[in-house]
C-alpha cells in the first residue's frame, strides 16, 4: 500500500469536484421556496436603543417577516456562553455578559445585530432592512485596551467597573524574582499584537429549515464543528433537546477558527424559518463580515527576559492584556490562557511570572484563530530573545543555541505548564541554520548594502501544544457487498481529510483510498464529534480510525477462522487478506464482509455485521515545533520589505501526506506573514467605528507579497497516539510572526531602530527610519 498509504504524497481525492466547479458549498444548495434574510446592525459602537419602527419595512415589497430584539426577548431565547470561566482582580468569578442573538436595549459594537428582515429575494430583504428604523441614543465608546483601562473610561458593561473582566496570575512570582535578582542583563520589550480577521474567502453562510410536523430544525451552514454548533444553538439559544436540530456542514471555503462556533445569524435563520414557514438563507457580504465576524488576537504584552553573563536564560516575566471585544464568545477567553506554556519555548528557562488581564471594549468580539494564543506567546519569547541578543551583542541564533533543551533531556518538564514528550530541537535548529545558510548572511547583507538596501535575518523556534480536545469517534463499516465507508465527527475545509484519513485506513486495511467512501459534516449521519480545530483532527480522529481498523482486523480474524476452519491464532492478516498458514487458504476483507452479513452462516456468538465504531481518547496533547528563518531586504527610500528567503525545519511527527503537510505549513506561514507585514483590523479611536471594512482597506497578502518557502520535515513521532502524528495545521503560523519581525528589526538595527510593531508596513518602517535618523542627528 506504499503507493497511497501513510507517507505517500498522494494528490487529493477531493480535488476533482473543486477544480471542475462541482464543489457543494452552502450557498450552492438548491432549495425551493427559499426566503432570504438580511440583518439590521448597529451603526454605533455604543448606544441605547429607545425604540424600533418596523412598519415601513413590513410594508415593503417582498418582505415576509421583520423581527427585532424585542421579539427575540419575548421568545425567551438564551445566549452564548464562554467555555472558560476565570476570576476578576477581586478573585470573584468573572462577569459573563448576556450574549443574545438580537439586542433590544443596548448595542455594544458597530455591527451588533438588532433586527432581521426576511423577504422573497435577497434584494428585497436588503431594501427592507434599509427601512427598519431604530431610535438610538449614542453613548461614548472605547476600542483599544489603553482607553478601556484609563481612569473614567466609558463602561462597556455597567457590571464591570473598569472594563477588566479577568485578572489572573500564573507561574511562580517568588522564584522568578529571585532569578531576576541574579541576572547580568534584563531585556525589556512592549509588544502590541495586532487584531486580524480570519477572512476565509467563503463568507459565513447559513440556511435554516423548520419541520412543524417533527418540530425539528435543520441548519445547512459553513461550520467547522457541526455538533458544537448544534449543541450551542439547541441547548443555549433555543433550549431544546439536541435531537431537535440537525446541522449539515457541506464543503466549507476556509475557516481558520472563524467558523468554529456559532454566530447569532445561524440561530436567526432557524428562528426565521419557523416564523415564516419557509427555508431561510443568509449569506454574509464581505463588508458585513468585517463588522460582524468575530475577530482575533489583539493584545498587549510587556515582556522581560533575565539572562546571566553568558546569555543563559534565568527567567521571564509577562504582563499580557487581552482585548475581548464587546462580548465573551465561546473561545475568546481561551486565547489568553490555553497557550501560555509556549512562553518557555524550546529553552531551558524554568522561571515564569505571568499576569494576564482581559478587558471589554466596544469592538467586534474576539474568538480563536489559527494558533489561538500560541502565535502571541511565541512572539513574546522569540522577539525578546532577539532584543536581548542585540543588547548583549550575541548572535541571536547563537543565543538560542546556548539555551536549547538538549535532545538527551527529552522528556523535559519546562516547570511551567508543559512537559515536552518528544522533539529534537538541536537537529531542528541545525537543519534550519543549514537550509538558510545562516553563516553566509553577512556576505549577503554586504551585497544588499552595496545596492543601497538593508538586509536582515530573523529566527524563531516555535513550539506549540496541539490536539487539546482529546476525544473523537470514528467508524469503519463494510456494506453487504464488501465496500467500505468511513465516518468521522471532524470536518474538512481545506485540511485534506478526505485524502489523508483514507491513507490511514489504506495503510491499515490494504484498501485503495478511491474505493472508500467518507462521511462527515452531518450531525444525523456521524457519531458525536468535536469538529476541526486546534490541529486535532489527525491526532484524534486519525487515531480513532486506527483503533477501528484494529478492531476490524480482530473481528475479521475471528470470522476468517470460522470460515477457514482453523484456530484464530492460525490466521494472519496482511494487505487486506486473511490467510492461514496451516492450509494456505485465504479470504479478503470483502469476503469477510459478505459472510458477516449472512445470518444463516454466521455463528451466533459472533453476531452479524462488519462495522466498528471507536471513541478514542488520547493520553495528552502533542508538541509540534519548528525552527523558522526569514530573510528580508528593505528599501530605505520607501520602507518596502521584500521577503527574500523563508525556511522552516519542522517536526509535526509522522507525516501522513507530505504534499498536504507542506501545504498546511506554507499556508500557515502566509497568514503569519500577512499579520506581520500588512493585515490589521483598525477601529477609530474616538468613535470605535471600523476603518478596515473591506479588502480595499484590510490588506490581505497577495501572490506577489509572498515568497517561495522551503520546508523540511523531520519526523519525531509523538509517543501518545498510535499514528505518532503531531498537529500540522497551526504550527507553522505560530513561528512566522516573530521570524518576520525579527528579520525586519535586524535589517533596521544598524540605523538605530530597536523594534517595529506589526504590521510592518512601508509607512511604518519609513517613519521608524526617519525617526532614527533624526535622533542620531540630534
Amino acid at each position, binding site marked *: 500500500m506504499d503507493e497511497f498509504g501513510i507517507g505517500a504524497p498522494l494528490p487529493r481525492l477531493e*480535488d476533482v469536484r473543486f477544480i471542475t*466547479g462541482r464543489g457543494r458549498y452552502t450557498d450552492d444548495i438548491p432549495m425551493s421556496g427559499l426566503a432570504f434574510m438580511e440583518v439590521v446592525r448597529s451603526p454605533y459602537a455604543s448606544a441605547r436603543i429607545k425604540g424600533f419602527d418596523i412598519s415601513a419595512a413590513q410594508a415593503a415589497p417582498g418582505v415576509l417577516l421583520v423581527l427585532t430584539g424585542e421579539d427575540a426577548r419575548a421568545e425567551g431565547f438564551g445566549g452564548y456562553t464562554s467555555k472558560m470561566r476565570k476570576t476578576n482582580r477581586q478573585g470573584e468569578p468573572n462577569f459573563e455578559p448576556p450574549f443574545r442573538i438580537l439586542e433590544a436595549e443596548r448595542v455594544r459594537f458597530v455591527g451588533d445585530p438588532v433586527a432581521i428582515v426576511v423577504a422573497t429575494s435577497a434584494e428585497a430583504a436588503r431594501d427592507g432592512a434599509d427601512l427598519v428604523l431604530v431610535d438610538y441614543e449614542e453613548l461614548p465608546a472605547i476600542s483599544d485596551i489603553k482607553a478601556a483601562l484609563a481612569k473614567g473610561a466609558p463602561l462597556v458593561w455597567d457590571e464591570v467597573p473598569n472594563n477588566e473582566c479577568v485578572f489572573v496570575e500564573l507561574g511562580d512570582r517568588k522564584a522568578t524574582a529571585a532569578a531576576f535578582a541574579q541576572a547580568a542583563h534584563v531585556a525589556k520589550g512592549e509588544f502590541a499584537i495586532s487584531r486580524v480577521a480570519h477572512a476565509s*474567502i467563503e463568507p459565513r453562510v447559513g440556511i435554516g429549515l423548520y419541520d412543524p410536523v417533527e418540530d425539528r430544525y435543520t441548519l445547512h451552514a459553513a461550520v467547522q464543528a457541526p455538533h458544537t454548533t448544534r449543541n450551542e444553538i439547541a441547548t443555549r439559544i433555543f433550549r431544546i433537546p439536541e435531537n431537535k436540530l440537525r446541522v449539515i456542514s457541506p464543503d466549507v471555503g*476556509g475557516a481558520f477558527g472563524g467558523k468554529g462556533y456559532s454566530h447569532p445569524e445561524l440561530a436567526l435563520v432557524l428562528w426565521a424559518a419557523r416564523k415564516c414557514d419557509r427555508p431561510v438563507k443568509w449569506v454574509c457580504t*464581505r463588508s458585513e463580515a468585517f463588522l460582524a465576524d468575530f475577530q482575533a488576537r489583539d493584545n498587549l504584552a510587556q515582556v522581560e527576559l533575565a539572562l546571566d553573563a553568558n546569555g543563559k536564560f534565568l527567567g521571564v516575566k509577562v504582563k499580557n492584556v487581552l482585548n475581548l471585544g464587546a462580548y465573551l464568545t465561546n473561545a475568546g477567553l481561551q486565547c489568553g490562557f490555553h497557550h501560555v506554556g509556549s512562553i518557555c519555548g524550546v529553552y531551558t528557562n524554568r522561571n515564569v511570572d505571568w499576569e494576564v488581564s482581559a478587558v471589554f471594549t466596544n469592538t467586534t468580539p474576539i474568538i480563536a484563530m489559527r494558533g489561538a494564543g500560541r502565535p502571541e506567546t511565541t512572539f513574546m519569547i522569540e522577539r525578546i530573545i532577539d532584543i536581548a541578543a542585540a543588547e548583549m551583542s550575541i548572535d541571536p541564533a547563537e543565543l538560542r543555541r546556548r539555551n536549547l533543551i538538549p535532545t538527551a533531556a527529552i522528556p523535559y518538564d519546562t516547570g511551567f505548564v508543559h512537559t515536552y514528550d518528544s522533539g529534537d530541537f538541536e537537529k531542528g535548529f541545525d537543519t534550519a541554520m543549514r537550509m538558510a545558510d545562516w553563516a553566509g548572511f553577512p556576505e549577503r547583507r554586504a551585497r544588499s548594502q552595496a545596492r543601497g538596501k538593508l538586509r536582515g535575518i530573523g529566527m524563531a523556534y516555535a513550539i506549540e501544544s496541539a490536539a487539546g480536545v482529546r476525544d473523537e469517534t470514528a467508524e469503519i463499516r463494510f456494506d453487504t457487498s464488501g465496500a467500505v465507508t468511513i465516518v468521522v465527527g471532524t470536518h474538512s475545509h481545506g485540511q485534506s481529510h478526505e485524502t489523508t484519513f483514507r491513507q490511514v485506513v489504506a495503510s491499515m486495511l490494504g484498501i485503495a483510498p478511491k474505493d472508500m467512501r467518507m462521511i462527515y459534516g452531518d450531525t444525523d449521519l456521524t457519531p458525536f464529534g468535536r469538529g476541526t480545530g486546534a490541529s486535532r483532527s489527525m491526532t484524534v480522529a486519525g487515531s480513532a480510525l486506527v483503533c477501528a481498523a484494529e478492531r476490524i482486523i480482530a473481528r475479521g480474524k475471528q470470522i476468517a477462522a470460522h470460515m477457514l476452519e482453523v484456530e484464530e491464532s492460525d490466521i494472519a492478516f496482511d494487505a487486506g487478506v486473511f490467510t492461514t498458514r496451516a492450509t494456505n487458504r485465504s479470504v479478503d476483507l470483502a469476503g469477510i464482509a459478505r459472510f458477516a452479513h449472512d445470518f444463516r452462516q454466521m455463528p451466533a456468538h459472533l453476531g452479524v455485521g462488519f462495522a466498528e465504531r471507536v471513541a478514542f481518547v488520547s493520553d495528552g496533547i502533542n508538541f509540534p515545533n519548528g525552527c523558522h528563518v526569514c530573510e528580508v531586504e528593505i528599501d530605505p527610500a520607501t520602507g518596502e520589505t521584500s521577503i527574500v528567503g523563508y525556511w522552516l525545519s519542522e517536526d509535526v511527527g509522522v507525516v501522513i501526506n507530505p504534499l498536504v503537510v507542506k*501545504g498546511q505549513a*506554507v*499556508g500557515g506561514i502566509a497568514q503569519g506573514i500577512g499579520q506581520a507585514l500588512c493585515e490589521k483590523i483598525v477601529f477609530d479611536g474616538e468613535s470605535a467605528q471600523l476603518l478596515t471594512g473591506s479588502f480595499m482597506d484590510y490588506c490581505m497578502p497577495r501572490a506577489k507579497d*509572498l515568497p517561495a518557502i522551503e520546508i523540511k520535515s523531520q519526523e519525531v513521532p509523538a509517543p501518545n497516539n498510535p499514528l505518532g502524528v503531531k498537529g500540522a495545521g497551526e504550527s507553522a503560523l505560530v513561528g512566522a510572526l516573530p521570524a518576520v519581525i525579527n528579520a525586519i528589526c535586524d535589517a533596521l538595527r544598524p540605523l538605530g531602530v530597536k523594534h517595529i510593531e506589526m504590521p510592518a508596513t512601508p509607512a511604518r518602517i519609513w517613519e521608524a527610519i526617519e525617526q532614527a535618523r533624526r535622533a542620531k542627528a540630534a
Partner: protein
Amino acid sequence: MTSVSMRVNGADVRADVEDRTLLVHFLREHLRLTGTHVGCDTSQCGACTIHLNGEAVKSCTMFAAQADGDEIVTIEGVGEPGRLHSMQAAFQQHHALQCGFCTPGMIMAGIDILRRHKSPDEETIREELEGNLCRCTGYVNIVKAIKAAAES
C-alpha cells in the same frame, strides 16, 4: 426587468433579469452554475473570475445586462471529471488548493495568464495573480501549478 441573451459554456441562454442583477448572480442563480463564487463585494478577491469573450473578467464587476450578446465560459465549461483541462490537472497535481473556494477563479485567471504569456516566470505569474486572493495556500503551489500547466 431586462431581457438578456448570451452564450454560456457553448449553450445559448436567454432570461429576464432585474436591472441590478450582477453577472455572477445571473450565472449562479439563474443558470445554477455555482462553480463561480462570491468572496467579496468590492471586486478584490477574484473568486468570481470567468472568461468573457475569451478574457478573464470578474463577474461581480458587471451587470448581467452588460454581457448581453457575449460569449462566456465558466469553470464548468473548462473541463470535467475525466476530461480535465491541463490547468485543472496541474492544480490537483501540485496541491494548489485546500478549501477550494478561490480555486475556480484561480484556474480561470491561470488560463488567462497563459493566453497572454507563453512561458511566464514565477515573478510574472505572481504579478498577474494580483486580482485573486487565496487564504489557504500561501500561493506557492498555485504559482507552481500555473508554471507546470505552461510547460505541459
